[in-house]
């Protein structure tokens, strides 16, 4: 075999084979958030139902779960009871819903029908969604007591996943405590 042709052929095909081998195992739609491991962007948003505004900074000191959702989002509908039950059972974790591209009457009607055990906040113009790099709903951010984003989850959550993420936040808390002299 022509040695020169073999070398040129390998030089062209090997990088393609390596690229395909690496890429086939990954979800092409999944883009890692640059915010994970960084401080969560602060926000102050009005709560649905005429309640006063809530700021993320005021919740510092406890783990916070921020869920971006909307009533028109079908996966959010299936996720809602999971989040409601989790919020009811995990009293030491603050759950927040941030409503994306929806109207307050729609939200109020949805919450009246499906229950509401934690505040839902109106994000007019999707400004906070942009600050969090949200691609679509539902997306959920897990913020540790120091205000750092520990994880981001795209798509609907189940109860086991929520527990895993909360545990991850707790472990990080323990690790940071242990690291403190």
């Amino acid at each position, binding site marked *: 075999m022509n040695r020169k042709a073999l070398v040129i052929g390998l030089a062209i095909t090997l990088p393609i084979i390596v690229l395909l081998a690496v890429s086939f195992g990954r979800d092409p739609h999944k*883009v*890692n*958030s*640059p*915010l994970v491991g960084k401080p969560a*962007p*602060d*926000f*102050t948003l*009005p709560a649905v139902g*005429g309640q*006063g*505004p809530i700021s993320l900074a005021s919740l510092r000191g406890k783990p916070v779960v921020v869920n971006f959702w909307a009533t028109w989002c079908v996966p959010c509908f299936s996720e809602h009871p999971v989040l409601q039950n989790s919020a009811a059972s995990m009293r030491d974790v603050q759950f927040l819903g941030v409503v994306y*591209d929806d109207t307050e009457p729609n939200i109020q009607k949805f919450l009246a029908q499906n229950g509401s055990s934690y505040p839902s906040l*109106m994000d*007019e*113009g*999707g*400004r*906070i*969604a*942009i*600050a*969090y*790099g*949200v*691609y*679509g709903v539902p997306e959920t951010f897990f913020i540790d007591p120091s205000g750092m984003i520990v994880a981001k989850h795209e798509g609907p959550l189940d109860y086991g996943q929520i527990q895993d993420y909360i545990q991850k936040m707790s472990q990080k808390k323990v690790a940071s405590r242990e690291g403190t002299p």
Partner: protein
Amino acid sequence: MMTTTRRFAFALALLLCASPSWAQTQTRTKAQIPAASVVGAPQGQPLSGTQLDVRTKEVASLVRCPVCQGLSVYDSPATMAVNMRHEVRDLLSKGYTEEQILTYFEKSYGEFVLLQPTMRGANWIVWLAPLALLALGGFILRGVFRKKAVPVEQDRPVTDRDQLPDDPRLARYVLEARELAYGWPGGVSPDHRA
């Protein structure tokens, strides 16, 4: 002089203004600027009018719509893109520079959101690879044209009827053709061969 009724109405108006619902309305109208905590205070001049329209188009054309296939937030009709376009416009109107705005989106969505990759790190490959490929193509073409320019050695003109071409393969074909045409090997009759 204020009557008692007027005083009562004035006090009631004050009370209503101080109520939580009024405070909430104020909170809603007061625009939050999350970009400020990421890129700091505006470093440019606040824009308005035609200049704002032009710059919005220019800057929004540099930001990729995260939910589309290769479209900028200026070109896409998706809700997410519209929101991002409005954000670009709002930030420009407040005096944020193009660099600050692109940095803000990059910090939220990652470098993926920039339609033009920045000239740093491994991104240099993206910028330099087309030039390198163009140079390689030029080099190959140069080689091809040089090869073609080499004069082809002409065959000796055939003057004699019985003369065979110099190319041995061609000569063999000529002999075979002669044999087919005349019926003798090489087209030469035994009489003539003698």
